């Protein structure tokens, strides 16, 4: 085996766990007691860098739990899913799944879904810049062509349906301190995430509208998606839903059948 690889394995083990120090110390020149202290400085830096990255991606989760508790969560997450890449901005995709069923947050059952929403927001914030379709995208299409059309969405657009009022929780936390007051935490909600210029926006969607957009986002035709939405709410009116999408800039372009 390469001597360099062996050195890095042993040094890395000492950065992962103090128990690894015994094998790393013989690699180092100079006073072992001082080297032991310095290995602990390196170990603390690696932990702190990972925690800072997770906190940056999940600020509302940290607001909900408090910083100290959040740092402990992030540390446990790092123990189970360490960073694998040189870019810490990409670290944390697995954090929501890590929180699922994690015993210490049993009192905050909505936290994993708030984390899912925050990861979608994190992704949207760095998605490619794109000009949304203008408000006349669907104008002039005959009903038959529209029914068979499929839609493309702007980069960063995301939908999530949750058993918790995630959009309300997130929106309230970005505005005020005691942000859970007055929210019905038993209410399921669908959240939509999109970019408006450089700003990431979040809104709640009604269940039928959520079904419509999830189907369209999954490349179902307009007619098929409408049927899906009507199955959720027979009185669903797609007019206001499309108006909202065009107004907010969710849509990028339309594929008519002859393009497919």
């Amino acid at each position: 085996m390469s001597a360099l690889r062996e050195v890095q394995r042993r040094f890395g083990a000492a950065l992962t766990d103090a128990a690894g120090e015994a094998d790393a110390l013989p690699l180092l020149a100079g006073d072992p007691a001082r080297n032991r202290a310095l290995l602990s400085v390196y170990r603390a830096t690696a932990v702190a860098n990972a925690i800072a990255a997770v906190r940056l991606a999940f600020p509302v989760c940290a607001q909900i739990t408090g910083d100290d508790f959040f740092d402990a969560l992030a540390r446990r997450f790092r123990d189970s899913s360490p960073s694998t890449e040189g870019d810490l901005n990409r670290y944390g995709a697995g954090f929501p799944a890590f929180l699922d069923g994690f015993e210490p947050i049993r009192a905050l059952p909505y936290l994993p879904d708030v984390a899912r929403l925050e990861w979608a927001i994190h992704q949207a914030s760095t998605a490619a810049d794109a000009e949304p379709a203008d408000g006349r995208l669907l104008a002039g299409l005959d009903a038959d062509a529209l029914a068979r059309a499929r839609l493309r969405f702007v980069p960063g657009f995301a939908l999530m349906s949750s058993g918790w009022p995630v959009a309300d929780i997130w929106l309230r936390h970005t505005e005020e301190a005691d942000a859970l007051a007055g929210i019905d935490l038993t209410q399921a909600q669908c959240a939509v995430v999109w970019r408006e210029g450089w700003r990431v926006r979040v809104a709640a969607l009604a269940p039928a509208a959520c079904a419509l957009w999830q189907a369209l986002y999954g490349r179902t035709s307009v007619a098929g998606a409408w049927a899906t939405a009507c199955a959720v709410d027979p009185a669903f009116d797609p007019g206001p839903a499309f108006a909202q999408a065009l107004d907010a800039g969710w849509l990028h372009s339309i594929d008519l059948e002859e393009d497919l």
Partner: protein
Amino acid sequence: MNLDLATGIGLRQPHYAQLLAERPPLGFVEVHSENFFHAGGASLGVLERARAHYPVSLHGVGLALASADGGDAAHVDRLAALVERIDPARVSEHLCWGRIDGRHFNDLLPFPYTAEALSLVAARVSAVQDRLKRPLLVENLSAYVRFRDSEMSEADFLSELVCLTGCGLLLDLNNLYVNACNFGEDAFDALARLPMHAVGEIHVAGHAQTEYGLIDTHGSRVCDAVWALLRAVRAAGVRAPVLVEWDTDLPSLDLLLDEATRAGDAGRVAAREAGHVRAA
């Protein structure tokens, strides 16, 4: 791009609005490359706006050139895309490792300076330079421990690396000073062993005194000893841009600009006294 004796500061998020609005006279701005490995969005947009007014130096912290694990092609691809988009004046990385057996510590970790390591780092640097179609500057590291198996000094390792790959040197004077203090050496001796002809950028920064010795925190003003090293480098005729590096406890933009002015003044005075710059 010839930045000569230019001075620069890091472009940091709390200063974005003020810097873009006031556009202070600066020779260049520097960013951590990884913070702009994005398809789009606000931070990349700000960097592009800054680039319209200033040369940009891209300073990487995640390439881990000395990792025995093998290169990260996707990381290099993202760097190449950013280089293509920003057309930077400099692209730099650290002489360090960070990843082993698939795990990345996201820190700048030291390694033994051996022939094996030299061969690996040289191959990695050459591959990155081929991909970027431009030279890479490699920065001397602040390393808190040293290895029994080292066969040469960091300065000799960097000199060999420059010879083997044609890369440049990002001379971090604070790192040089921190290492010299921590290991009871003379920073000017260490400076004399480095390949001055290859210096493509200089960093100055502050450090912290701790119970473990000096730690390279980039969180305070530059100390007198590091200014003295900068004057020595200028007096030796090194004409490369100097960056005031400040990453933690970020001060006001005005204080940072003041520190950059000091860096420029120190360098110009020393260079003029040594006859490397004609008096205006």
